[in-house]
């Protein structure tokens, strides 16, 4: 009987040697004349265990990780093909505490299915959402999304249904669905994992959006830094088209929808939705002033839904299982689940999907296992380069849009980057300004000039020159950038800077008491 093995082809697994491991398993099986089939899946999200090899047994799939190519011979000797004992054996991946504690909706299939298999996707509930969407029709689809309480997962948390309704109500000869997959935040990789591990889900979500608002064309705009995701997404689009799930009269219905993958070119600001639209059109990725909203005048001046990957992939679940079931997860106005990404200097980094409301400290210390270096945690940056540095004494903060906003922080795209005590927070504040200066689109002055002045100020502060005066100017500059910038790049760069200064004044050479006096 052919033994079925599963080796991820997620970029993270490949970067940790998964291709070499797959080749070594094949060679070891050939040597022993054991017939094996190696299925290349996405990643389960337990990234510290990558490459995580699984073998199909009578008790289900048994995992081993992290496996290196050098381990393979010993593993096979120990009975890898039968799920035998070995120090790398973790048992059934779904029983692992990291997995068992999650609520997986968006990531239910990721790491289990072959991302290029249409039948795998359908066998695990795929296209059930589209089926119901086709039965409901546009008005009811939007009503379901509204009832689910789904908010944009890109960072702003804007209610998805309102965007959709605006586009649906707009009159135009052509409308677009644009998926923002320009996942540039450090510490985030959920979009990448979905595109590599379960790309049909994004196709299904975009198709439903298209039906809901009357759009016939979709674009996935993603990053040149994500070649594996582009490849996987492209392949899935071709397969979906071959199955009649994209193109004219999808699934035999009256609706038509097709899509393309487009690649950015290393500009972080293109993750901002209007800059992304300009880039898609073939221009510099500069931010547009709003209004007009993209929902009225978006891509090529046509009404456009622009949603994050994670928002769009939540849609098939909402439709398939009903809005109420989705809305039952979460807290306050943050409904449903959030795929949280735990990264940086952390022991158990990975993708943890859970209902909103989980305390930050539980994610970092309990689930993440604290720092990889073993030193105490100094801070965690939540929400990417524009997110605040949260100190351990605020780790009781629940993962919720409003709770974070109340503490001058943001959850953004759900990335958490953990830093240990060796981190110099003044240096991190300087980096925030430097990054903003490098990535500013240049359209508005507070961001374009402010970031460079901020960098210079940080240099002076780090040299301890006229400390009080320079910190006062820095604080004032941050205030101007926050209120005067056109988009979140200039507007949120003050978050990491000011949170670093507020919580770790000693790294800036001032005592906490002195800082209060300066304010």
């Amino acid at each position, binding site marked *: 009987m052919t033994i079925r093995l599963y080796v991820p082809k997620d970029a993270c697994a490949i970067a940790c040697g998964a291709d070499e491991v797959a080749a070594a398993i094949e060679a070891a099986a050939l040597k022993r004349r054991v017939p094996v089939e190696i299925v290349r899946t996405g990643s389960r999200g337990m990234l510290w265990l990558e490459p995580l090899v699984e073998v199909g047994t009578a008790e289900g799939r048994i995992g081993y990780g992290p496996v290196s190519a050098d381990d393979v011979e010993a593993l096979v000797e120990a009975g890898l093909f039968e799920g035998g004992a070995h120090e790398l054996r973790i048992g059934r991946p779904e029983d692992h505490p990291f997995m068992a504690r999650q609520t997986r909706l968006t990531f239910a299939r990721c790491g289990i299915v072959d991302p290029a298999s249409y039948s795998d996707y359908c066998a695990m509930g795929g296209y059930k959402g589209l089926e119901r969407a086709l039965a409901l029709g546009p008005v009811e689809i939007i009503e379901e999304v509204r009832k689910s309480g789904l908010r944009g997962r890109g960072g702003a948390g804007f209610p998805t249904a309102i965007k959709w309704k605006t586009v649906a109500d707009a009159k135009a000869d052509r409308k677009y669905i644009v998926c923002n997959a320009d996942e540039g935040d450090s510490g985030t990789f959920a979009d990448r994992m979905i595109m590599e591990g379960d790309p049909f889900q994004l196709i299904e979500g975009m198709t439903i959006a298209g039906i809901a608002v009357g759009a016939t064309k979709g674009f996935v705009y993603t990053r*040149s830094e994500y070649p594996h995701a582009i490849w996987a997404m492209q392949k899935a689009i071709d397969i979906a088209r071959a199955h009649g799930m994209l193109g004219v009269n999808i699934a035999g219905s009256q609706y038509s929808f097709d899509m393309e993958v487009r690649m950015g070119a290393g500009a972080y600001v293109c993750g901002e939705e209007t800059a992304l639209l300009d880039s898609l059109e073939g*221009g510099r990725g500069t931010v547009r002033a709003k209004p007009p909203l993209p929902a009225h005048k978006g*891509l090529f001046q046509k009404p456009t839904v622009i949603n994050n990957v994670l928002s769009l992939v939540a849609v098939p679940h909402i439709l398939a299982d009903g809005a109420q079931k989705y809305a039952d997860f979460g807290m306050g106005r943050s409904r449903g689940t959030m795929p949280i*990404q735990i*990264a940086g200097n952390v022991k158990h980094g990975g993708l943890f999907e859970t209902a909103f409301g989980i305390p930050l400290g539980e994610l970092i210390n309990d689930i993440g296992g604290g720092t990889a270096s073993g030193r105490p945690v100094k801070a965690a940056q939540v929400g990417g380069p524009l997110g605040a540095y949260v100190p351990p004494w605020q780790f009781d903060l629940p993962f919720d849009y409003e709770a974070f906003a109340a503490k001058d922080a943001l959850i953004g795209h759900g990335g958490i980057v953990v830093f240990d005590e060796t*981190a110099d927070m003044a240096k*991190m504040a300087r980096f925030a300004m430097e990054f903003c200066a490098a990535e500013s689109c240049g359209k508005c002055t507070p961001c374009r000039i402010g970031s460079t002045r901020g960098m210079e100020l940080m240099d002076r502060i780090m040299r301890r020159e006229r400390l009080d005066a320079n910190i006062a100017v820095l604080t004032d500059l941050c205030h101007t950038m926050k209120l005067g910038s056109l988009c979140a790049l200039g507007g949120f760069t003050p978050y990491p800077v000011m949170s670093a200064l507020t919580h770790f004044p000693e790294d800036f050479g001032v005592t906490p008491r002195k800082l209060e006096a300066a304010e």
Partner: protein
Amino acid sequence: MPHYEPWSEARAREVINELVHLEGPLMPMLHAIQETFGYVPEPVVPMLAETLNQSRAEIHGVVTFYHDFRHEPAGRHVLKLCRAEACQAAGGDALADHAEQRLGCKLGETTADGRVTVEPIYCLGLCATAPSAMLDGRIVARLTERRLDNLIAEAQS
């Protein structure tokens, strides 16, 4: 090691013409040109301007806006080191210093012998297994000084 074609106006025309049917074709065209020649040669700018009925200044503005587009060929190998926060938290600063020292050039520069271009990159999305690097499109995570030395040796060979 990537193989690029020598500059040829006819070839550039061919690459451009293959993509004119797209909606918003400029970015795909620039990527295709760079994939063909290894950089975006200056003579392409007026060709694109004419094809898309835009001014040269507009095309130039787009080419220079994006970090990815090269204005001259890179070294034979390109080593990109992730310099974003997650990799910094996991020791990326020391690795970047080490690479600069070993190669004798700064991030963003090419070694004197033209073999290696070393560049910063802001996030490969491998943040849970940081620090990360990319050598000619091949991604490597859990980078250590020893692994970096191996990559550098490979690039220099």
